[in-house]
């Protein structure tokens, strides 16, 4: 368990540092990172906690805000950073950009920038696994906004009736771009919309341990062939919907609200716990940060040194 806690800490920390590094270099010196970015800092507990339970062969399906899902699932950092830099060495050879990340070897099946477009695909992927009798599961991440799309309901019903191995993870960060939850949703949470169809759990997404433990319990059920689950994780994003600002500059939320949530930072929370239990010394934190920093810098160098796709290849790859 101790080991697991440190793993979760490391996973979250790595996502946070990657997002911050991207933000610091976006729109700055690294002009060639020309891709619309949707950063996930603040929400790391969900990606880390859920993916901490997944095997390499399990697959995740992400959305426009999927740097964290990709990294937590074991997607290659270098290839992701190269993708953000529009390089041929990127995980999608520069064709996809930040919102379209794929690393099939490590179980990042796809991410879609069409909101909720990934949900039914995850269900179909699970159907294939059931037919092929593999014991892997599909996990799909989507937002509170996405849960409003009709296809989510259709997909959930389909998965349930066919007892498919899918975990629906809704990251409820209270906003769809700048529209707050309360003007779009009839209920106080998302899970209750679906609880007559399938088992639902609603947890504090900023508490990585809770996310981790709940997911472990749920994935056991799913792996046992008991059918799909819905996991709602309540959380908050620190940045604007896209780009690097903090939302306060966009005036869609107040500084007080942001500060309130910053105080609930999932990384800080675990750090405090680990320190209190004597499991994490300051020196160790520094060592971890140092290691991650080096990894990130190496990934950025790799990206910058890589070539961009040759324009002559524009028409290649439409067909398989």
């Amino acid at each position, binding site marked *: 368990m101790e080991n697991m806690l440190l793993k979760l800490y490391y996973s979250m920390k790595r996502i946070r540092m990657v997002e911050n590094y991207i933000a610091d270099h976006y729109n700055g010196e690294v002009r060639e990172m020309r891709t619309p970015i949707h950063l996930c800092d603040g929400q790391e507990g969900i990606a880390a906690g859920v993916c901490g339970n997944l095997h390499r062969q399990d697959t995740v399906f992400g959305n426009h805000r999927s740097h964290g899902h990709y990294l937590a699932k074991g997607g290659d950092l270098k290839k992701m950073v190269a*993708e953000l830099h529009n390089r041929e060495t990127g995980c999608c050879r520069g064709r996809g950009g930040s*919102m379209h990340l794929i690393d099939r070897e490590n179980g990042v099946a796809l991410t879609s920038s069409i909101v909720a477009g990934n949900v039914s695909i995850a269900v179909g992927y699970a159907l294939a696994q059931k037919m092929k009798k593999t014991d892997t599961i599909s996990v799909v991440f989507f937002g509170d906004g996405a849960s409003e799309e*009709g296809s989510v309901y259709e997909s959930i019903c389909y998965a349930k009736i066919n007892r498919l191995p899918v975990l629906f993870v809704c990251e409820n960060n209270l906003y769809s*771009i700048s529209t707050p939850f309360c003007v*779009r949703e009839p209920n106080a949470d998302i899970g209750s919309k679906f609880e007559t169809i399938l088992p639902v759990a609603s947890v504090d997404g900023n508490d990585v341990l809770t996310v981790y433990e709940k997911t472990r319990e749920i994935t056991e059920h799913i792996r046992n062939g008991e059918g799909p689950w819905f996991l709602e994780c309540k959380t908050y994003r620190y940045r604007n919907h896209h780009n690097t600002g903090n939302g306060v500059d966009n005036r869609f939320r107040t500084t007080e609200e942001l500060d309130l949530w910053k105080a609930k930072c999932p990384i800080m929370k675990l750090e405090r716990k680990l320190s209190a239990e004597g499991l994490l010394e300051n020196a160790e934190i520094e060592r971890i940060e140092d290691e991650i920093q080096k990894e990130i810098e190496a990934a950025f160098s790799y990206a910058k040194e890589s070539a961009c796709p040759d324009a002559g*290849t524009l028409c290649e790859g439409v067909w398989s």
Partner: protein
Amino acid sequence: MQKKAHAPMPVHYVKECGAKVPWTRVDSGEMLDSDHILKDIKGQKMTYTEAVRNALAQALRLDEKVFVMGQGINDEVGMFGATTGLYKEFGEDRVFDTPLAETGVTGVAVGAAMGGMRPVYCHNRPDFLMLAMDQLVNHASKYNYMSGGICPIPLVIWAVTGQGWGSAAQHSQALHGMFMHVPGIKIIMPTTPYDVKGLLLQAIADNNPVLFLDHRRIHNQVGSVPEEMYTIPFGKGVVRKQGKDITILGISSMALEALRAEEALRSKGIDAEILDLRTIKPLDIEMIITSVKKTGRLLIADTGWKTGGISAEISTLVYERLYRELKAPVARVSLPDVPTPAAYTLEEAYYNNAADIVREAEKSMRSVS
């Protein structure tokens, strides 16, 4: 024709590209003052999106049946500036945010239109309209006909095609060619602030479903816009510049590129006639025929894909009527049949601009029949 067999990119290309077009501006394209093509319009100078806002505000003020909705419509930016602050004047009952539920909410709009209102439903990108296809294609476009004319659907769907810096395959599609295939939906694609106001007011006044497609690269245009309400009839294109050698028909942002190309062509001794189609359906085929009769040559510059799209349709219409009078095959500048790539090296090769029009126009001029 498959697109461009490019020579490999020179190594210094990447850096140059960054410096030449700072990426923050690539999205909206260069600014063009439309007053130099629309000489005698009197009014206040405003941007394209201000003209959209102006039209929406006047329609809301005039007719309590009009309402405006869409995702994020009331946020600080307000749909690229086109709806900014409207809710403050007209209230959140008439200018309101919608959930991320395009399929259902499009049906709601259709129902509201049937029920006697005049909804304007706004989207950031036409790509998201794919979720609304059932309501648009199977319902909105059908009921007037299917009801023998007793069930009109006065609905405006407004969406903005994206282009530039990594929008990639799911946020940049120009889908008018696809919608054009379906009877019962009008399609409008203006380019100047003056036109957008008149055409949007016409769209709101129209008793049919109207798909109003803007383009990110025209949002930066400025021009004079009269304060009074006016409409521009559908099915009427405009001749932006008279010429005798070749007809260049521009669609949406490509009409602006055609104007830029015209200057370059003039310096090469080619006198091009520039047409801006403005409305895709109904289509001003008479304007095109009249022009091509005069010049004998046609180049169609479109923002969409080549296959099965509007350029194919217009070419056929022209061949049907002017087969013997053409001095050269119809030339087409359109997108290759490839999803939009994210990487800027590929993006640059993918999109067309004035230079591509110039090249194809020169090629057409060289061909003699």
